[in-house]
């Protein structure tokens, strides 16, 4: 069967939604390759439909067998992005997986908490690196003997005293590494659980 303009528009619409979904969590080249394969599948199926058949009905049946584009994208996320994140534990696929999970409400809050964890860990490491360069700006900030802030402040407000010498560097490094390791472990566990959810079938 040869597709009419309306049929082609229906296929383009399906592929457009699928591409948008895939591109949100996949590297561009992989998203294009995946899309090309799905397009080839649809066109192949269409070519097998006898001439004179009801185009709209045949096309809807083909797309229904393939599954809704968001569901297909979800299957890709579970198999590729989440699988890579779980298997390798590398930061880049984990962040891509978290970005995908963040598109739902529950995933958004979990991803936000993990993002805050990563930022906090990196902040401690950054403070350790900044301490030798700006010794008078990094430390515990006191006003009238009461701690009011902790970290690096530029410039130090008048009337504020900064305490804590170079001994803070190993402490910052230790805490930073601890926070990063803890956050990363939690992110891996979350991504593994989310992958199970994506692959998991019928909610109980």
């Amino acid at each position, binding site marked *: 069967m040869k597709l009419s303009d309306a049929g082609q528009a229906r296929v383009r619409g399906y592929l457009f939604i699928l591409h948008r979904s895939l591109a949100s969590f996949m590297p561009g080249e992989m998203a294009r390759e995946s899309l090309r*394969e799905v397009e*080839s*599948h649809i*066109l*192949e199926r269409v070519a097998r439909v006898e001439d004179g058949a009801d185009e709209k009905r045949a096309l809807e049946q083909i797309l229904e067998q393939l599954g809704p584009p968001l569901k297909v994208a979800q*299957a890709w996320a579970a*198999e590729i992005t989440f699988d890579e994140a779980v298997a390798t534990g590398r930061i880049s696929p984990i962040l891509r997986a978290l970005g995908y999970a963040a598109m739902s409400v529950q995933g958004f809050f979990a991803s936000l908490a993990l993002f805050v964890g990563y930022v906090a860990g990196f902040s401690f490491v950054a403070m350790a690196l900044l301490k030798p360069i700006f010794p008078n700006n990094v430390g515990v900030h006191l006003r009238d003997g009461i701690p009011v802030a902790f970290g690096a402040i530029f410039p130090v407000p008048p009337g504020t005293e900064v305490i804590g010498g170079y001994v803070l560097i190993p402490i910052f490094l230790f805490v930073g590494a601890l926070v990063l390791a803890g956050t990363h472990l939690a992110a891996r566990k979350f991504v593994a659980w989310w992958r199970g959810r994506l692959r*998991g*079938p019928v909610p*109980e």
Partner: protein
Amino acid sequence: MSFENWQEQLRRGGLEFAVLLTLSGSSRYGLDIIRHLEESTDLVVNEGTVYPLLARLAQQGILDTEWVSDEGPHPRKYYRLTKPGRARLDAMKQHWDSFSRKLDTLARQSERNS
């Protein structure tokens, strides 16, 4: 776990094995794999879930891929087992033989006892 969940997990677990078995003879393109699975099993519920599985297997080096454009009306992406893929399939077959034999024995014992 409900019966539907158990059934679905069984189906998903079997799909990867079935895909590798389908490719054990010769290379095939996506729709060809799906049609073969549909003819001989009921493992394919949504056709769109087979492609991500194929992509993962290719990413893991279990399958090799090649686009062929001069064969059908549209370019087709062919999949074939790699050497590690064949080794994995052999290991899966062995495991499956032992697994299914034990379950069969249990099922027969249960039938005799009931």
